[in-house]
């Protein structure tokens, strides 16, 4: 039976991949705190949406938790001082973004005192109105800490409006190497549970399901203990399978519901928040602390003492790596997990709200096998959690037929990387997809621009034509007048000459 099982059924869901998770020993190392570095570099764009606008001046002294930059626009988040000190610069730095483009940031020199500014704790958040909770969450700069960095309060309001019944708490953390959520749940389970109950109150959800991958038994135990008193908070171990921590896959695993294509999760009655976000909401409400620090996993073959580090936002990757030590020069630096993370060009990039991990790979881990020809093995198709056909999409993109790829619903691709991971020919499938998606949206934009340009050109041509017409008409008129005058003159001369 056991062997038959192996052929006919796989353990857990029939999508995804099971990469070597490399989570331990980093996950088991005790949580350490990074001493506040001398200087912090705080980018204004640490979230999805409009960048924050600085409200401090160079030279100004600030206290820990003081507002540095305010939200700009409907979807945005404010940014606060991670420690006390003095603003020494407001200018552009290299920010952790795939484009590697420079971004506006505030540089803060720490005064070493770490003095808190004024905080407004709430003793009983459940007595507040949902709108008030959303307001305070927004003011604390809380964004989705699972990686999406979408402003949390905006999501609260959406959930409230669409009458979400179930809050799904994402403790999946399916990316290999990362354990920051795991660490948070082990050490601060009660904060997570309190935070998620506050969110339930804010969105009006009746119950909460916390999905945690089975490979984190310590976190599951701690969370179960913390959730014990609350009947409507259920801790649900889920199979450890990448990408279990993707919203759509977690929703399906926990509730059996599928989010329709082009719809939002809230439209099927659920809302997903990450465990770290829950803890941040707890701190924002109960302690009045804005989001200014987070747990970062520092891991990888080049790290001397891998583990989780509690670090202020704005600390640089180099500060963290200096703290944990390196055994060798890293062959590759990655922000986030190995499946969906961002390659870092150098270590002078600061930690931002969405930075769940820093990976310093040694040469062996950084090895990229050469891509070969597709053998149509279908592994990518079987692995795709969205049920797409990666090989067909890649074929069309390679042939330059982006519309062809769209017919295979390229737009449904969540860029999870499962297909590229399993491909025995090591074809960089995700790259094809991101390239195509970028190209398509560029085309879309230029189509709009072209339409506008075409209108302008047409208007100009019409104007020119009108002008030429008018000129011609005027010229004709003048010519006619001249001719008439000439004729008159000739007439006279003729008459004069006739006698």
């Amino acid at each position: 039976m056991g062997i038959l099982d192996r052929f006919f059924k796989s353990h857990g869901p029939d999508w995804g991949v099971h990469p070597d998770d490399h989570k331990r020993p980093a996950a088991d190392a005790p949580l350490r705190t990074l001493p506040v570095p001398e200087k912090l570099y705080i980018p204004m764009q640490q979230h999805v949406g409009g960048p924050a606008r600085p409200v401090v001046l160079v030279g100004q002294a600030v206290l820990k938790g003081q507002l540095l930059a305010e939200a700009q626009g409907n979807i945005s988040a404010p940014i606060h001082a991670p420690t006390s000190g003095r603003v020494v610069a407001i200018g552009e730095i290299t920010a952790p973004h795939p484009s590697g483009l420079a971004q506006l940031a505030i540089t803060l020199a720490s005064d070493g005192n770490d003095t808190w500014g004024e905080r407004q704790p709430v003793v009983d958040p459940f007595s507040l109105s949902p709108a008030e909770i959303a307001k305070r969450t927004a003011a604390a700069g809380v964004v989705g800490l699972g990686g999406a960095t979408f402003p949390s309060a905006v999501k609260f309001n959406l959930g409230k409006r669409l009458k979400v019944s179930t809050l799904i708490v994402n403790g999946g953390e399916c990316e290999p190497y990362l354990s920051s959520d795991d660490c948070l749940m082990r050490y601060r389970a009660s904060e997570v549970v309190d935070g998620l109950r506050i969110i339930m109150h804010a969105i009006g959800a009746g119950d909460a399901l916390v999905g945690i991958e089975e490979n984190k038994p310590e976190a599951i135990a701690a969370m179960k203990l913390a959730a014990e008193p609350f009947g409507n908070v259920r801790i649900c171990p889920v199979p450890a399978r990448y990408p279990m921590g993707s919203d759509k896959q977690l929703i399906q695993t926990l509730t059996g519901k599928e989010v329709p294509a082009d719809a939002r999760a809230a439209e099927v009655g659920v809302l997903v928040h990450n465990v770290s976000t829950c803890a941040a909401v707890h701190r924002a409400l109960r302690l009045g602390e804005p989001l200014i620090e987070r747990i970062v996993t520092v891991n990888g073959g080049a790290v001397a003492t891998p583990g989780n580090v509690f670090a202020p936002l704005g600390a640089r990757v180099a500060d963290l790596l200096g703290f944990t030590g390196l055994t060798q020069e890293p062959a590759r630096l990655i922000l986030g997990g190995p499946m969906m993370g961002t390659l870092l060009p150098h270590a002078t990039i600061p930690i931002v709200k969405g930075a769940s991990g820093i990976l310093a790979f040694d040469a062996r881990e950084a090895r990229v096998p050469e891509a070969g020809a597709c053998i149509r093995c279908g592994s990518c198709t079987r692995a795709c959690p969205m049920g797409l056909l990666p090989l067909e999409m890649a074929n069309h993109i390679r042939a330059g037929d982006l519309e062809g790829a769209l017919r295979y619903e390229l737009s449904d691709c969540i860029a999870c990387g499962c297909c590229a991971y399993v491909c025995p020919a090591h074809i960089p499938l995700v790259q094809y997809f991101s390239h195509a998606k970028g190209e398509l949206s560029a085309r879309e934009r230029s189509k709009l621009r072209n339409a506008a340009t075409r209108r302008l050109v047409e208007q100009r041509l019409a104007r020119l034509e009108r002008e030429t017409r008018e000129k011609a008409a005027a010229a004709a008129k003048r010519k006619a007048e001249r001719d008439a005058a000439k004729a008159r003159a000739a007439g006279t001369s003729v008459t004069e000459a006739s006698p």
Partner: protein
Amino acid sequence: MSNTLRPPLVAAPYAVTPHNVSRVMLWVAAALAPATVFGFWLYGWPAVHLWLITIGFSLFGEALCLRLMQRAAIPVLLDGSALLTGWLLALSLPPWAPWWLGAFGGLFATIIGKQVFGGLGQNLFNPAMVARVALLISFPAAMTVWVAPLPLTNPAAPGFIDGLRITMGGLPAAFDGVTSATMLGHAKTELSRGIDLAHSLVTVGAPADDLSGARAGSLGETASVLLAGGGLLLLVLRIITWHIPVAMLTAIAIPALIFHAIDPTRYLSTASHLLSGGAMLGAFFIATDYVTSPNTRLGQLLFGAGVGFLTYVIRTWGGYPEGVAFAVLLMNALTPVIDRYLKPRIYGRDRRGKALEIAEESTS
């Protein structure tokens, strides 16, 4: 062409599977090894020579094409796919076939069957089966000279040199007595002469459903148990899935069961069908070829069933005693169509690709 997009050297994911193409091919080769070695033992040195020649020429054909296209041949040869093509072709040849049959087949397989289409992953038809069918049509006589097993341990078996002589020069008179017929071929010939199975089968050396596979047949097709064992290994390693083999064998077994029940004197038993000819080799190693079979589970079930059913039809009512190669090629031709219509359901969409409806309770 492939240069329209030149991805940067590294991008997510930064982790890759330990699998690679050569490893997949090597495991398949390993899974074929027991049946092959058994074939060597059963049919002696000529089989060994033929195997080497067929593989050698299919590698040579691949290298030749790559050289002509000015591409480095070694890395491509190392992926193991040409080796496997030659190997599978050799296993489907009569074990004492002359050298030129293997040579021609090997060249045909990699040049016409594969490189002409654009190389690995581009061919529509299974190269080994293309070559086998080409040989069967061009050299029907040479392709149907079978020998009764003459195990290496048997003193009458040809030695290394005699074996070479057989492969290089054809069957010497001394060994004339060993030619035989395959069970399927014999049954078909006798039936066409009006002799029913009840009488014809008694004259075949070994019982048709003998599990050991010690009977006349292609080099590596008779050892059903060893082939199935190799197939199971590939299943355990998840190199193939169960869909194609199970569908194919079932689709051979069901009609065999029905017709044999109706008239056992005209229709062979299920066991004879499953254990003889290329059924096992085909089910686990040929129909499961990645390149030429559908890549969704549902498609694979349909494909396997098609190959199985067509095999039965050709064997029973067609002009040839064995039908696996033809059946595979026919279904290969249908693979693009199957892939087109049997796509997996996309998350959040129905089978036709339309977005799912948003459930009522939540929109209220």
